[in-house]
């Protein structure tokens, strides 16, 4: 079931939580809403679910599931599944009763027979690998297990749209990884349309077919994870998707200078701020004719696929972060306090942004 939002806006009192938004989600797509807290992503999800109403203004917004206009349809009739960050399981009911709830509250006409309910619940429990815990109560389960129950419960009513509000936010890193992969499999297998909210860029990029990046109640960019990472539309998106190093200085005659550092760049004269990712910084023992950016290593973290090195210098307002391959790390024999030279491989610049967005970036 495709989802289409036309001109959806939301105010809470005098604050605008969402500026008028248009969004198309295709059938069978898994879409992540990504943004810092207060960006309006959860509000948007709750409006899609029908747990929140969009503003009724002169030009009221519209929500379509396929061809069905659900703008004024109550949440219970929208045929959605909703998964909450803190699971929201019914604590006085067993796992089985939780999953069966959506089926047992159906009107007598539409309710399946009790044998069929039983079969369906166990099929779902098998899918989430919890059939052996059917008689347990939620308090007896771990966080990851509870979230799986909550997912099975939402899927029991065979929703056309599955909405997840920070589904893995309350879980520890390892369980989060596992559930993420598992949800992706489930999505591909059952082929429903899913929208999930997250503030974790890694999660959004790993899980989604397309990512909607939001800030301040606005959509900043909608793209595939790959496109989003490679060609961010603006500075906010670039900064939100990963670590960023800033280089600010004056350009004259094709040379950017900042304190005792300089760098040949092909830019017109004037004040410039350039941004680069940690992996776009190369470290050498000698300066080149292209650049002279002396730095000192202040911290080294050798965990993961690459070694993360923190760099400081008089001409830098904020320390830089560089990632180095383990072989290069050994080759250069890097150690704390060592003085080196940085060489940008690649950089980006974005037109100056308004104060508001800069502030938001800092929060993120």
């Amino acid at each position, binding site marked *: 079931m495709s989802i289409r939002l036309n001109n959806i806006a939301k105010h809470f009192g005098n604050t605008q939580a969402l500026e008028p938004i248009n969004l198309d989600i295709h059938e069978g797509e898994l879409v992540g809403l990504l943004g810092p807290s207060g960006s309006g992503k959860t509000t948007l999800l709750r409006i899609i*679910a029908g*747990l929140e109403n969009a503003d009724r203004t002169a030009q009221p917004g519209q929500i379509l599931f396929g061809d069905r206009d659900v703008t004024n349809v*109550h*949440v*219970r*009739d929208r045929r*959605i*599944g*909703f998964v*909450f960050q*803190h699971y*929201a*399981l*019914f*604590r*006085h*009911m067993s796992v089985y009763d939780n999953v069966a*709830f*959506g089926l047992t*509250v*159906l009107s007598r006409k539409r309710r399946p027979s009790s044998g069929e309910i039983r079969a369906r619940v166990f099929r779902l429990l098998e899918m989430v690998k919890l059939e052996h815990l059917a008689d347990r*109560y939620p*308090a*007896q389960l771990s966080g990851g297990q509870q979230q799986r129950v*909550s997912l099975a*419960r*939402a899927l*029991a*009513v065979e929703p056309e749209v599955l909405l997840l509000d920070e589904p893995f936010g309350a879980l520890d890193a390892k369980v989060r990884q596992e559930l993420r992969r598992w949800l992706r499999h489930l999505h591909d297998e059952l082929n429903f349309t899913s929208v999930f909210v997250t503030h974790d860029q890694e999660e959004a990029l790993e899980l989604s077919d397309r990512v909607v990046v939001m800030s301040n109640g606005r959509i900043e960019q909608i793209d595939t994870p790959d496109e989003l990472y490679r060609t961010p539309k603006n500075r906010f998106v670039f900064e939100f998707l990963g670590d960023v190093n800033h280089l600010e200085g004056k350009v004259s005659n094709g040379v950017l200078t900042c304190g005792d550092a300089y760098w040949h760049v092909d830019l017109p004269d004037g004040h410039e701020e350039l941004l680069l990712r940690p992996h776009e910084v190369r470290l050498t023992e000698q300066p080149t004719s292209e650049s002279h950016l002396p730095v000192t290593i202040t911290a080294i973290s050798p965990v993961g696929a690459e070694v993360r090195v923190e760099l400081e210098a008089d001409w830098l307002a904020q320390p830089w972060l560089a990632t180095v391959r383990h072989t290069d790390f050994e080759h250069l024999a890097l150690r704390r306090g060592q003085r080196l030279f940085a060489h940008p491989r690649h950089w980006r610049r974005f037109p100056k942004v308004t104060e508001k967005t800069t502030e938001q970036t800092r929060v993120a």
Partner: protein
Amino acid sequence: MSQLATWRTGSTRVLPGFGLSMGISVLFISLVLLLPITGLFGQLAELSLAEYFAIITEGRVVASYMVTIGAAAVAALVNAIFGLLLAWVLVRYEFPGKRLLDALMDLPFALPTAVAGITLATLYAGSGWMGGLLEPLGFQVAYTWVGIALAMAFTSIPFVVRTVQPVLEDLPAEVDEAAMSLGATDGVAFRRVILPHIWPALVTGTGLAFVRSLGEFGAIIFIAGNMPYETEITALMIFVKLQEYDYAGASAIASVVLFVSLALLLAINIWQGRFVRRLHGGKG
């Protein structure tokens, strides 16, 4: 043996002051609770078993049990419904004057019961505001058991509100939303999700309200009319015995009220313990 030694040196306990605070608590409980109850049983010892049963099964006294228990049951039931409603309103909605309403809930506790009794009696007597309205309709409140139930309901409503309120606050709105997203109507969501959650608190609150009503004296006595066999409450029977300097008789009747109250509270506690264990992960 070694366990005893470590316990003696106190090395197992990090929080200080256990001995002192526990000692004072036990002393206080002994003086305020256990000593008077022991005194009551001391009085009872003056009676033989036959005399005891004769006193507590006397016709007028038995009639007073009926009036008291009946009115208290009605009052508790009314409180269960309206107390739940009040707690619901106080927890779930935002409205101007919410804090004031919240504070008003405790008024029946703060008000001397005799003041409440006199106020209710004047209000509901034939010449009072409410009585003047109701009596022409053939509905008499003052000096009937309805008046007794009314006074009981007034003095005990905070028990229900104050026990249900925190439990309701503890229930996240998300649970409600989850039920609705699964297609439950408001009624079904309330009956199957909210009510089971607050059920133990509601029963406890209602039980406390009922027990409190059994022993209430001051608030009821002015509105009850105190007609033998009709509108006499058990607390009044105790008072009457005392006025006749029949201390043993008064104690005998008091002991009945005490046993009923204790048995009820104990039963609720045991039942609730089971329920709560299930919520927190024990075998139900």
